[in-house]
């Protein structure tokens, strides 16, 4: 079974608002305000793939291929996947960095998946941790004509496809999907990303990563935009956060609790 995991890099989401800056001209976060990391839900997707391979040991051989789209620096996300023992990693070279239009990414991934044929399962994060589009997985499934299930946290392989547990508004659902399938992955307590071993990280740092180019995958670039109505990013703004906190003080916890309830009554909340 071949599993493709699509990964991308984002600006570290742990950067506090006080340190966050924008690059108005690039219409993106300013460079250098923090590290780039693998997008949070892509890490969950890698974890789901790794656990599937472990569970299938002895039943079926599983190959995990990590894909990313971006400039040469995007290979860092692939090295993370390799350090977690993904079997292969391929960089789809695109001059532009993020945010890339969802349809462009989906069309490039589709071409790469077809080149990797046969592929049984594609996993990607439910949305990127920076632009929160949440469309690439669905676009990819539509482009390929495959089953698609969103907000999946657990997957099992069955004789005729997959059983996927996915989150819903009220709880969760079990969905049976045909093979091949696309699943967009969300976090839960069963897919918390593991940390790589130091030895594997060093090996991944030295790995040679193949690069596939847009011309070899899809021919002219205009073909990427087919079936797309492109949204234009006019600007980014930082919303003003003007809040003055009222600290509840007191000599004892009793006093603080009483003062809090009093403050809430004054604000007519209680």
């Amino acid at each position, binding site marked *: 079974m071949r599993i493709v995991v699509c990964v991308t890099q984002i600006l570290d989401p742990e950067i506090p608002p*006080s340190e966050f800056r924008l690059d108005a001209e690039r219409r993106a976060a300013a460079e250098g305000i923090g590290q780039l990391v693998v997008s949070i839900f892509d890490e969950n997707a890698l974890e789901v793939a790794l656990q599937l391979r472990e569970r299938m040991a002895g039943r079926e051989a599983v190959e995990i291929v990590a894909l990313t789209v971006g400039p040469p620096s995007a290979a860092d996300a692939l090295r993370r996947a390799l350090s977690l023992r993904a079997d292969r990693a391929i960089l789809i070279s695109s001059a532009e960095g993020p945010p890339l239009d969802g349809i462009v990414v989906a069309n490039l991934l589709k071409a790469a998946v077809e080149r990797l044929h046969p592929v049984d399962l594609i996993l990607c994060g439910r949305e990127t941790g920076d632009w929160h589009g*949440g469309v690439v997985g669905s676009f990819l499934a539509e482009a390929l004509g495959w089953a698609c299930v969103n907000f999946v946290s657990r997957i099992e392989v069955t004789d005729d496809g997959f059983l996927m547990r996915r989150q819903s508004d009220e709880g969760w659902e079990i969905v049976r999907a045909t093979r091949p399938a696309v699943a967009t992955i969300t976090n839960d307590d069963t897919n918390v990303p593991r940390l790589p071993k130091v030895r594997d990280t060093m090996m991944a740092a030295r790995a040679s990563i193949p690069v596939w180019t847009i011309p070899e995958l899809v021919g002219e670039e205009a073909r990427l935009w087919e079936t797309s109505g492109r949204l234009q990013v006019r600007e980014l703004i930082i919303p003003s956060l003007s809040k003055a906190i009222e600290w509840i003080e007191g000599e004892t916890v009793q006093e603080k609790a009483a003062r809090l309830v009093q403050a809430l009554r004054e604000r007519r909340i209680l």
Partner: protein
Amino acid sequence: MRVILVVLPASEIGRSEREAIGAAHALAATLGGEVYVALIGPAAESGVEQRGRTGPTSEASTVARAFFVAHPLLREYAPELYVSALEQLWATVRADVILFPGRTIALEIAPRLAYRLGAAVATDVIGLRAEDGAVVITKPVYGGKAHAILVAPRPPVVLCVRPRAFDPVHGEVIGGDAERIEVALDLTSVRARLIERIREESATGMALEEARIIVSGGRGIGGPEGFRLLEELAQWLGGAVGASRAACDAGWVPASWQIGQTGKKVAPDLYIAVGISGASQHVVGISGAKCIVAINTDPRAPIFRVADLGIVGAYENVVPILIEEVKRLRAEEGA
């Protein structure tokens, strides 16, 4: 004439549906044009059935035209069938904007519909207006640290609005006549079938999205036992219990309790954040709260920058006393 079509794929008309219609009216105020609503699936069937029995209601509807897309195969949600039905609806109702409520099934349907229509799509929308005839969209990015202003230069554009970001409409959603839309569906196109559906119990029996008061716990709670204390407080306050991603990933509470960018978006009157550090992806889920109270041992925790009221202290000490104070208040009110 511009058409803003609100599609309601859930089986009931709730707050999220009313907010979506409210968002459509807000956009129509600057774009011009009319707001239409389409029910699809079980809600459409009950609409058809009700019209058959009683005829249209006399109450004025909030929308100009309404459509029922009913079909036996739509009784159970399957994205392939719902998207196909909506594609066929669009062939009849050439909307400039197709707008969905902030429901999980909408987040699944909207991108696939957009792909088939060759339309632009944006999810988690918190602002909508028109400028020079183009639709201008605001959505949070970078975990809510910034807002992106996006422009859809040509129709159609498909949108999912964020829950609690728009004011809901009141009154009869579909009061007047509704047209029945016939669709042809192919069962063999279904590649993902629902096998089982589980409702996760909320702590106090109240849904997070509806609660006026929410008590929420994070990593600082330290384990599932600590949440019992939060549940007790929520019970006495008549509220619901939520959690940060850290608490859910640790398996201390069900995933459906998660509040944040990728959990529930809530806008209660009172949000009490206990042992929650206040990462932006959590804070963006509570930005609609009227009053935020934070209880944390670390005075420099980011949650205090968005809180209205703050107590520095261990929750194990503070919350039990708070419960006593609330009990006392309730007793006084009862007397």
